[in-house]
């Protein structure tokens, strides 16, 4: 019965789908796979030890944490907000996209500004509301709901596709180690270079879609007196 070896895969899928504790899932999957495939307790300990140590490069983020908090303490977020204010003739849609570009660029350098809780809510959304008012409109609640959705989506899209551009990020290292276990040696920097066009397409695509959507929404909620009316 070779199929029994898949018990670990089943545990991973079912465990994550049932929202069990992630570390518990991994632990159970590793233990049961080791036991049914005849690795035994000693083999399990040995495999865990060898693989955990071999995957240490994923812990390099802890080294970077030495500066993450201190950068925040010394005004990194304020600086990012100041950069955003430089966006010309801002609309809510354009601000969301400016944030996407900023988030993606700095994400590639493994620098964050606090995500949805730390930046989108306290900095980006008030700026977007201000932009709508500047155009002479009272921000519509439905419109703001969409702006919030687009801002969160932009945060995710820019971060997902651009984080892998950082040489030494967890994603690239995981790919490198997975390929290595199959006998393929790849360099982290080559992985990042391959992803570069994809990351740029993703941010540009999201920006274009969101600016178009915001234009349509502005028309819908505030009538045809569009953005340029107040200039």
């Amino acid at each position, binding site marked *: 019965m*070779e199929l029994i*070896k*898949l018990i*670990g895969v089943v545990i*991973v*899928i079912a465990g994550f789908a049932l*929202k069990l504790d992630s*570390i518990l899932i*991994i*632990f159970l999957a590793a233990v049961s796979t080791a036991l*049914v*495939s005849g690795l035994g307790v000693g083999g*399990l300990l040995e*495999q865990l*030890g*060898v*693989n*955990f*140590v*071999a*995957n*240490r490069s*994923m*812990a390099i983020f*802890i*080294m*970077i*944490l*030495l*500066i993450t908090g201190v950068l925040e*303490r*010394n*005004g990194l977020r*304020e*600086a990012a907000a100041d950069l955003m204010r430089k966006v010309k003739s801002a609309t809510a849609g354009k601000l969301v996209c400016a944030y996407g570009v900023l988030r993606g660029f700095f994400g590639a*350098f493994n*620098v964050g500004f606090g995500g949805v*809780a730390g930046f989108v809510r306290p900095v980006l959304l008030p700026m977007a509301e201000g932009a709508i008012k500047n155009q002479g409109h009272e921000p519509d609640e439905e419109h703001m*709901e*969409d702006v*919030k*959705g687009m801002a*969160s*989506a932009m945060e*995710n899209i820019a971060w*997902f596709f651009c984080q892998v551009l*950082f*040489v030494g990020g967890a994603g690239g290292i*995981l*790919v490198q*180690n*997975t390929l290595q276990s199959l006998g393929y040696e*790849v*360099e982290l920097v080559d*992985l990042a270079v391959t*992803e570069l066009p*994809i990351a740029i397409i*993703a941010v540009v695509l*999201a920006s274009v879609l*969101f600016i178009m959507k915001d234009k349509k929404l502005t028309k819908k909620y505030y009538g045809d007196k569009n953005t340029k009316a107040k200039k």
Partner: protein
Amino acid sequence: MIDMKFLQVPAEFNTVMLDVVWIIVGLIAFYAGIKNLLDKENPSRIGTAVFWCSFGVVTALGSWLPPKVSGALVIVMCMPAIFKKVKVGRVNVPSKEYTKAQYSKIGMKIFVPALTVAVMSLFFALFSNVSSMIGITIGVGISMALLMVYSRDNKPKVFLDDSERFLSLMGPLCMLPQLLGCLGGVFTAAGVGDVVASLVGNVVPEGNVNLGIVVYAIGMMLFTMIMGNAYAAITVMTVGIGGPFVLAYGANPVVIGMLALTCGFCGTLCTPMAANFNIVPVAILDMKDRWGVIKNQVLVAIIMITIQICFMIAFK
């Protein structure tokens, strides 16, 4: 391509310096453990300390410990995490007034130390054979020096305490990628990949690389949607499908491996299972529609998976 790697160091340099890197990382984690052990405001001082300290030991001494001892330490580390005994103690968040004052003093110059780490990592990756991990460590060192020059408040203890603040904030889940990588290793050792491959072989004809790429990419996306985590999906999918049905026929592992992960991210964009990214923001931003974030992501995800499949087929 011209070899730009003019800076060459002997292999022993990398080995020795990497051990230094892991000792520093281990010590940071160990410091977090001890700080929480002594923190009267932490509701679970011992569990928290066991978690960070055993991680610190296995990371710092992994090169010398017998594998079975390291494995036992990993299990010890997992226990407090599984039983929810890893908690946050006293949090020392800088006040808004303080960060504003620092910004008016330092200004846009703050971006220099922020970008230093990645620049150094890239520099060493492109122009030397020094390990990226060492490059990052050098970058962190330069960045710390700059921050100390910018402001006298940035004493060594501030760096250590702030790293503890962020470690505690992230909690045991920050170990997820490393543990998943570890699980992938156990799967490979147990021969799980071969079993998955023989199952998939019933459906996908061997030798058709393009079909293999499509199945691998869409499989990554769907698997990630079910599990909510692309990192968990990629180990299983690569060992079971990517390896035997795509890479075994000579496809470029750099293109296939890297894009498979971001194909998985397209799945992350479409699933409420990735609650951190798609559901928690709904709450943080007081949105009415639980699907409000996902709705804005689906179209991008569908276009991106299509582009990536075409890219993989074109550049395989």
